[in-house]
């Protein structure tokens, strides 16, 4: 979850534009929650992240900008309300990602055993699954994919990559650079040894141009 401070607000032709104090990771198509800013509060789907002053829409409904006025860190979304000139504002935009592409049961199947619940191992597995889900979504986002659903995995290769990463994180408990093993059975396997395969399955890091 990331929370950004709002410093400016604007409404034109039923589109609201909020400017955040700092650069943000919000991208078009994702949901954000505005709070502390009367008239704007609620969850909105981002329509655009413009770099210029928003001037309204044309007769075709396309968003129009004044490209001579550069304004960074803007988030634009639909909001049916009266027009409001750009002015200072206070509030927050919260961007929350709770990805649930793979489950504990998926990872247990991959590991080949079940983990007793409750136990500290189960707690760790829960964290590993959540971490792998968040990592997979973030890395794919950084690589230019837009995965619309946080609850449904986009494809089976991504699913397997996420499961493998969660399993690796779980197995790395107590390890630094190699997996902790019984000495007579130690294979010297480095932690992260599967990362190449995991990243191939996730489709990252591919070159992305923004």
């Amino acid at each position, binding site marked *: 979850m990331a929370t950004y401070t709002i410093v400016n607000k604007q409404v034109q032709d039923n589109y609201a534009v909020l400017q955040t104090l700092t650069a943000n990771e919000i991208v078009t198509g994702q949901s954000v929650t505005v709070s502390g800013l009367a008239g704007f509060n609620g969850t909105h789907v981002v329509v655009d992240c413009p770099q210029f002053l928003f001037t309204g829409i044309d007769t075709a409904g396309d968003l129009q900008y004044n490209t001579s006025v550069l304004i960074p860190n803007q988030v634009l979304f639909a909001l049916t309300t009266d027009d409001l000139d750009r002015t200072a504002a206070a509030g927050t935009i919260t961007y929350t990602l709770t990805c649930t592409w793979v489950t504990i049961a998926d990872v247990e199947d991959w590991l080949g055993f079940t983990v007793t619940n409750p136990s500290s191992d189960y707690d760790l597995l829960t964290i590993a699954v959540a971490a792998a889900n968040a990592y997979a979504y973030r890395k794919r986002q950084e690589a230019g994919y837009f995965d619309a659903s946080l609850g449904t995995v986009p494809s089976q290769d991504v699913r397997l990559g996420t499961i493998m990463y969660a399993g690796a994180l779980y197995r790395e408990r107590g390890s630094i650079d190699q997996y902790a093993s*019984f000495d007579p*059975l130690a294979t010297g396997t480095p932690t992260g040894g599967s990362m190449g395969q995991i990243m191939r399955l996730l489709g990252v890091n591919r070159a992305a141009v923004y």
Partner: protein
Amino acid sequence: MTATVNAFTLGYDNVVDKLQTITGLTVFDDPRNLNPPCAFVDAPVIRMNSNLVFDMTVTVRIIGTGPADYKCLTKLLELADLVRRAQIGLTDVRPAVTTIGAQEYASYELTIGAKIGP
């Protein structure tokens, strides 16, 4: 079994056949087909007592997956115990690292002895 030209092969195949009847144990006799967790029957060691009678020692490798943590160990011991319960001449059980190609697996080496003769 008669010690014929094929006695060595027959002795080895006989051990493989007996292992493959064990429920819950996947047995391979060809390293290219390995799919751990499983048992792999290694090449036998043969000691001749005479031209007809010989002792065959077969090493069965119980191969686990992933790093050799407690979960892996318990799985290896569980599979090894299936071999013990089959009562086919198990004489020794010891931890090991098995290299198949360039891949290392946590494993257990099980020594099975058999006397082959006419």
